[in-house]
């Protein structure tokens, strides 16, 4: 049995995140309303220089269509540039280990994966990625994609506050997100990893001579700074193939818990930033409580069903939990906290082998990716939560026979239409490719389609559609079908909801205010919070329970 003290560091870590989130939220609101911040002396000139280079006027406001067009253009340029880097990396510098050019389909999958904040890795970093591609290519995308996500969040939020149809200036938001939000946090995160002994060097390998193993060539790189943006940006693509299970990248419990803080920090700060942006700070609480409540239940289920695998005989002791596919330097509650934080924030970093987990633990992870909003990835996770809120308000309004409204804006046909599109695209993007792969027999040998294999296929496309990026293994997924289908699922799964969020923000921004009446749903109340939690669970359950039963849960039988 695991002693209760082992759960203390889980509680401590979550408390640290919850203490920091309102502070960072208020700071982010300052950043996005162009109010002075403590970094202005240092970074103000950088901002101004960048705006001049970009040729952008800070005063130029955009409607949602213009905002979306610029966002898509920037993301497409980044995607294209990195694709070219990856298919030509063999001839580019900083390739001491001789990584060959990527095939077009693998490069398409990889570049799409990193630009969409998914970071699903079909390549083996130690063998198939040069340092040049890692820095000029993938790490650049690890900044572009979460910054894009936070821009979407701000534009969406402004819809509730403005009345003139504008949602902001994309380039101003993008630059300020990078210089004021990510840069300071990445510096702090990198320092933390450095102090805990994570390597940071531009050398790509080192040779050691061990009395136990002879000469050993060990891969290295700028791991500490990679970890920082990989986690803060809810990216999740590891510098090493074993992701953060790799001992060099995640040597101790201290680095694991720091990682949890970094992953959850921005997703849990955005509700507070939202409350401050719309000048109703109290509205943050129902949203934070909803995200946290579902997160904590999932964590409880994950831990409980990882304590013991009843399938193993009693001659195998599971006193420290079912540690198959877990690292022994972390306690089971720590590994579980990291895993659930990573999947529920749609980071996708991993310290456990998900394929080795018990069926209920796997189901708890899949549920987080079905929801995408508790708390979800940087910016877009909160955007999804607002979409659930709009639908909940609409359904609630229908039930009591009142005009639905949220935060003084009437929820009308446009908003509900876009919300439903964002919500319903998710099952389509998961179930259709899964059905195709199963029917065409792709990724597994004929006759071997058991519940575990089905779970692998389901997990693969769920992870890609949710822009999560964690993998379960178990299928041969480095084929043209899985690369191309996966890339398309990731791209649609990213940009369709983003368009919906911007469109809703834009249409709300054009609306005049709706003064609260006697039939107005009080969204700050506990009743609404409970209603919202149940709404999320019921919607995700209705959409995905059948595949959950067909996949992981039928392994129980």
């Amino acid at each position, binding site marked *: 049995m695991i002693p209760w003290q082992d759960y203390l560091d889980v509680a401590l870590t979550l408390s640290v995140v919850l203490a920091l989130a309102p502070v960072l939220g208020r700071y982010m609101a300052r950043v996005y309303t162009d109010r002075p911040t403590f970094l202005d002396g240092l970074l103000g000139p950088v901002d101004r220089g960048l705006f001049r280079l*970009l040729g952008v006027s800070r005063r130029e406001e955009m409607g949602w269509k213009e905002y979306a067009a610029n966002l898509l253009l920037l993301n497409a340029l980044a995607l294209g540039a990195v694709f070219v880097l990856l298919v030509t990396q063999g001839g580019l510098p900083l390739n001491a280990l001789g990584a060959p050019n990527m095939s077009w389909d693998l490069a398409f999958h990889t570049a799409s994966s990193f630009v969409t904040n998914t970071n699903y890795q079909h390549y083996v970093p130690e063998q198939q990625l040069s340092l040049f591609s890692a820095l000029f290519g993938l790490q650049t995308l690890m900044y572009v994609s979460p910054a894009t996500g936070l821009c979407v969040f701000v534009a969406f939020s402004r819809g509730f506050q403005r009345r003139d149809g*504008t949602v902001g200036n994309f380039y101003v938001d993008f630059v300020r997100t990078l210089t004021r939000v990510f840069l300071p946090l990445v510096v702090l995160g990198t320092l933390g990893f450095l102090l805990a002994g994570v390597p940071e060097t531009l050398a790509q390998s080192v040779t050691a001579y061990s009395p136990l193993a002879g000469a050993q060539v060990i891969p290295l790189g700028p791991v500490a700074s990679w970890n920082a943006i990989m986690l803060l940006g809810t990216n999740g693509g590891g510098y090493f193939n074993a992701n953060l299970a790799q001992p060099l990248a995640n040597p101790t419990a201290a680095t694991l818990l720091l990682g949890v803080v970094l992953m959850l920090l921005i997703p849990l700060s955005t509700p507070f930033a939202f409350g401050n942006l719309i000048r109703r700070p109290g509205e943050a609480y129902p949203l934070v409580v909803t995200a946290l409540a579902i997160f904590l239940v999932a964590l409880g289920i994950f831990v409980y069903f990882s304590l013991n695998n009843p399938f193993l005989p009693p001659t195998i002791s599971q006193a420290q939990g079912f540690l198959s*596919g877990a690292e022994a330097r972390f306690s089971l509650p720590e590994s579980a906290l990291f895993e659930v934080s990573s999947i529920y924030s749609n980071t996708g970093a991993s310290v456990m082998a998900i394929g080795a987990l*018990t069926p209920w633990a796997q189901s708890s992870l899949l549920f987080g990716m079905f929801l995408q909003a508790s708390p979800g990835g940087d910016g877009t996770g909160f955007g999804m939560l607002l979409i659930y809120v709009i639908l909940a308000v609409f359904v609630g309004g229908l039930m009591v026979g009142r005009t639905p409204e949220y935060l003084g804006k009437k929820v009308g046909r446009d908003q509900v239409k876009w919300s439903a599109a964002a919500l319903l695209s998710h099952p389509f993007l998961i179930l259709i490719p899964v059905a195709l792969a199963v029917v065409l027999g792709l990724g597994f040998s004929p006759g071997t389609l058991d519940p575990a294999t089905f779970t692998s296929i389901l997990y693969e496309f769920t992870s890609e559609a949710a822009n999560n990026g964690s993998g379960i293994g178990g299928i041969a997924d480095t084929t043209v079908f899985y690369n191309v289908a996966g890339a398309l699922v990731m791209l649609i799964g990213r940009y369709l909801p983003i368009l919906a969020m911007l469109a809703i923000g834009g249409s709300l921004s054009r609306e005049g205010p709706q003064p609260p009446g006697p039939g107005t749903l009080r969204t700050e109340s506990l009743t609404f919070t409970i209603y919202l939690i149940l709404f999320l669970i019921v919607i995700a359950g209705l959409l995905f329970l059948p595949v959950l039963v067909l996949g992981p849960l039928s392994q129980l039988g």
Partner: protein
Amino acid sequence: MTEPEAVPSPPVTLIPTSPVPARVPPVAPPDEGARRIAPEPPFRRPQLRAGVVAVLATMLLLGVGFNVVASLGVAGVSPGSAQGPFLKNPNGTLEVSRLLGVNITSPELFWLRPSATDYQPFLGAGDNGFYGPTDPALLNETAAYAAELGLTNVTVPVDLVTPSASGLGADVTPQAALVQIPRVANMSGLNQSVLLTLVNQEIVPPLFSWLGTPYVNVVLLDLALLPLLPHPPAPLPGRR
């Protein structure tokens, strides 16, 4: 600029008696009186130059620049730590990473958990190669590895007979080290109490003594064990 107050043109106020009455429908129902829809803002072509410069700036300043600054900073401040924690030989060469496991097969030494790639640092485990929790192969493999370790009639800690997530970790639970003592004593001729003391010395305590769980770094344990062995262990894997 993002505040409505900062918008150059005066914003429409919240009050129904706003200064833009032209948009209020003349015969609006009472509860709709306050609502009007602003016109769609103008759409300008997306700014190609801004997009290109923004991607390039992110690439050079953050994707590359930050890593270069951080790496050079570490090399300047603390040159030894750039590669992570290593043990050094007396002559200054790197001996072994304190963190990475190695493939130990000598029966006189403590063993690590099974690894599909035999602890080759460049072949860290990805997602593949793990047995599902109810896969019959999991039972066979755990039983086979326990037999290899000579642990047939005792309770075996689960971590010792299953792979770690990375396939590279140097660590096992203290129980997984303790259960190997009889075999190591038997094969090396050392006293069990000597080995027990050694294992207890090598247990890594939790951080600040309560943050996490104790574990044993088997690489460091075996390095401490080597000088105690009466004769060098039989086949030293990797030393060719």
